């Protein structure tokens, strides 16, 4: 029943329309940067809204949520990495890059989940929004550490010939890639984190009268923009699914199993560790289940050039994102109902 509800959500239907438009080779094209523009709007709107609500919230609860967001953000990519190595289908570099995507989060999926909960009139806590902001970054760091480790292992395997390469690389001109501090800075200053955290602070400290004027921007057009965003993302996902053959069935299966695993872990964290209601628990499950496709891919391209972008883009955009939007969200909602009750 509830899964039918999700399928009939306008935003999800637009996702399907985008997907179909691409499959039937329609000449429909969105401007190249539209998805990025729209995601900035979506993060701004949800950040303002959430910050305003959070200003009234309990500080201890917020801090506990942040702590659990960090725990999830650091541990999920490690679980994903081990899972990927077990499949024997990818090298450690690819495994590191892919798992960074799965530890991080997708704001698009999160917002679709909010649309879903709104649609069936389920109340939800605002704390998961802070978790969304916190969980963008840790997985990038874990992915980079795993990649550095894999790089050392590979270099050691190749033996003496690589020491010369290393010496050559050491005098390379891009020092900004090598320092760990720089990596941390990159992970925590990425655009989505700045927009979301900044908007939450603005929402929290703004005068209520000023926020009331923003109402049309934050609330009234929100669902329409989400439709447009998912319309675009449907086309992107359909374009990615074309690389399915390159990815292979085992990895494709990972793209479905990993979100289910993350969803179950997230649901238990939301319900048991954080004591959220059904709505909040659903949102934490979605955070655990979703895979990043905006913040992490460029970070991995830059820091782990050895990894194959087709793998992580196809998995996160072509498989996990559609799976979560269409099937996952109602599933996590049902799971949350079962655990909380």
């Amino acid at each position, binding site marked *: 029943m509830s899964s039918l509800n999700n399928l009939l959500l306008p935003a999800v239907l637009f996702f399907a329309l985008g997907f179909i438009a691409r499959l039937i080779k329609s000449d429909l094209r*969105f401007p*190249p*940067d*539209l*998805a*990025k523009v729209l995601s900035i709007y979506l993060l701004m709107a949800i950040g303002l809204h959430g910050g305003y609500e959070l200003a009234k919230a309990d500080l201890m609860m917020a801090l506990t949520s942040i702590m659990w967001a960090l725990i999830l953000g650091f541990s999920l990519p490690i679980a994903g990495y081990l899972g990927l190595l077990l499949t024997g289908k990818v090298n450690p570099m690819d495994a590191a890059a892919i798992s960074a995507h799965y530890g991080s989060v997708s704001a698009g999926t999160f917002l679709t989940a909010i649309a879903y909960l709104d649609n069936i009139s389920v109340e939800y806590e605002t704390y998961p929004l802070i978790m969304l902001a916190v969980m963008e970054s840790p997985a990038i760091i874990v992915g980079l550490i795993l990649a550095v480790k894999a790089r050392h292992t590979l270099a050691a395997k190749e033996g003496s010939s690589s020491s010369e*390469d290393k010496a*050559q*690389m050491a005098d*390379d*001109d*891009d020092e*900004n*890639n090598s320092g760990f501090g720089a990596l941390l800075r990159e992970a925590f200053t990425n655009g989505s984190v700045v927009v979301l955290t900044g908007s939450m602070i603005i929402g929290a400290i703004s005068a209520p009268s000023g926020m009331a004027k923003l109402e049309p921007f934050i609330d009234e057009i929100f669902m329409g923009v989400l439709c447009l965003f998912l319309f*675009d*993302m449907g*086309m*992107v996902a359909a*374009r990615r699914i074309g*690389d399915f053959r390159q990815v292979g069935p085992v990895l494709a299966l990972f793209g479905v199993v990993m979100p289910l695993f993350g969803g179950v872990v997230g649901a238990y964290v939301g319900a048991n560790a954080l004591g959220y209601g059904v709505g909040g628990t659903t949102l934490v499950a979605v955070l655990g289940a979703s895979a990043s*496709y905006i913040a992490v*891919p*460029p970070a991995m*391209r*830059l820091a*782990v*050039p*050895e990894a194959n*972008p*087709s793998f992580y*883009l196809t998995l996160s*955009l072509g498989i996990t994102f559609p799976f979560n939007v269409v099937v996952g969200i109602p599933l996590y909602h049902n799971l949350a109902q079962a655990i909380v009750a």
Partner: protein
Amino acid sequence: MVTLYPEKLLNIITIDSLEDKLVDSFKKYGVSGYTIVRARGAGSSGLQADMSGFDANILVKVILPEDRVQNLLDSLERKIRKGYHLTVFVHDVQVMRPEKFNTPWHE
């Protein structure tokens, strides 16, 4: 009759996220300026469709005196060894004002 002077035109096709690193190398190896255009296409890295900005490429053009080409090429070679995908090709070109290509740009 305008006199033309020989220079080298270095072209690089790569992913857009590498832009900052390339510009850093340009500064380091005394490049006088650069031009970057957004690009899409297909090649050894598969299709780079630039759909919604998810797989955008850039085409970077740099004009420089021949004696500075090699150092820059070495630095690009190191990037390729690290695993970055770069397509690099060099043209002989003729320019009108060679002094333009001698001093690094100001920011």
